[in-house]
């Protein structure tokens, strides 16, 4: 708590941000299908496109809450969200309309996408509906990317994704484009050249930034055989320096310390209307905390919600960074696999 002279600590300020009712984040899975079959993916693609009654529920929930909100964040995830573009357009247009009716409502939308279907014209169009931030993953140059980030029919994806990124770069869409680049011992030797290409192609445009992500062992079946980089590997520092050459640190993305799953005012809405917290633990019953009704009301199982918030009570930044760790810690002494493993061949695990 605060007193008349004191200010809340950064931890308590984050807590306040996470429970304030004038802020709402809806993480929407408009489809749980994907046009890619990345070799390390943890999803099982068992659920299809968001049903009309769920879409209606999302829109009605926005209407119910709009008058009391200062900020609405609509985050698209999947599956590949762009496979359900009509759902994205319907919901974002509705959010835009709500914003026009309620001038005090701040609204922004973002998308985690494989980038295959986001060309320049699409980015421009969706920016008009409020979709202003994207994350697109790259596993290296084509020779590496096309080994792991493959289409459902097995074909490579790099050239199309790169072409789309170049189109966005050439256009004037009001978007931020985060390129998430996965690092492994295998692709490390080609990274200096590849990242220099990224830097020279995109990074003089302030809309673009890079997130260097080490692929790590997360309990998948290939953990024993896969090589990973140490977090303090000096080569990673070298790559970061390469990216900022001729520019600044703003080219490098700095992750937030608190996961959305630890925030009480953030809800995951699955394509079938189930409510959850985490976008990784999709097959864990602990991640089923309720249901969205077509009228926009929600049925919340609060005892199931609360374990996701325990990092606040424990004042544990590690748990706030990944509240799902609490479930894996309690379940067994050794961390159990975080990833939902499909029957597809797996080469590495990364989230």
């Amino acid at each position, binding site marked *: *708590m605060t007193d008349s002279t004191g200010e809340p600590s950064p931890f308590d300020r984050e807590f306040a941000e996470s*429970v*304030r009712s004038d802020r709402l984040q809806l993480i929407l899975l408009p489809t749980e299908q994907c046009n890619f079959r990345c070799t390390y993916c943890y999803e099982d693609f068992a659920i299809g496109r968001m049903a009309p009654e769920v879409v209606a529920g999302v829109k009605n929930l926005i209407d119910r809450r709009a008058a009391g909100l200062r*900020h609405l*964040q609509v985050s698209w995830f999947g599956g590949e969200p762009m496979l359900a573009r009509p759902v994205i357009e319907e919901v974002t247009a509705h959010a835009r309309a709500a914003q026009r009716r309620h001038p005090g409502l701040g609204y922004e939308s973002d998308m985690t996408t494989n980038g295959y279907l986001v060309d320049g014209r699409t980015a421009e169009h969706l920016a008009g509906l409020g979709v202003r931030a994207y994350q697109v993953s790259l596993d290296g140059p084509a020779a590496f990317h096309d080994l792991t980030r493959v289409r459902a029919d097995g074909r490579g994806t790099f050239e199309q994704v790169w072409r789309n990124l170049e189109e966005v770069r050439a256009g004037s869409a009001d978007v931020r484009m985060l390129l998430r680049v996965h690092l492994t011992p295998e692709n490390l030797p080609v990274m200096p050249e590849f990242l220099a290409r990224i830097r020279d192609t995109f990074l003089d445009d302030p809309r673009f930034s890079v997130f260097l992500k080490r692929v790590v062992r997360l309990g998948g079946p290939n953990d024993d055989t896969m090589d990973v980089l140490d977090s303090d590997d000096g080569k990673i520092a070298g790559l970061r320096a390469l990216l900022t050459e001729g520019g600044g640190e703003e080219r490098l993305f700095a992750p937030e310390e608190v996961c*959305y799953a630890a925030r009480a005012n953030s809800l995951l809405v699955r394509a079938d209307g189930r409510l959850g917290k985490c976008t990784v633990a999709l097959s864990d019953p602990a991640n089923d905390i309720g249901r969205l009704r077509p009228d*926009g009301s929600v049925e919340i199982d609060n005892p199931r919600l609360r374990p996701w918030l325990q990092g606040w009570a424990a004042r544990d930044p590690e748990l706030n960074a990944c509240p799902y760790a609490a479930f894996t810690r309690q379940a067994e002494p050794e961390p159990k696999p975080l990833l939902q493993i499909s029957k597809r061949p797996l080469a590495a695990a990364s989230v």
Partner: protein
Amino acid sequence: MASQGPTFAISTADLTLDDEGRVHIQNPELAESVVAAMASSPNASARATTNNCHGGNCAKGCGKSVER
């Protein structure tokens, strides 16, 4: 610079979501503290955008916590 006040006494039992997904804080003292903190940072939209792994939370949190 103002001094830092005592820390919030947070219990998850005090937190519930209502049937519109709105957070309710059952403990009046904690609720007051949150309102005071919000008053000192009133612009909710000014926070950095976070999304699924977009904010790197999975990347940082999950990877960091369960990596072996």
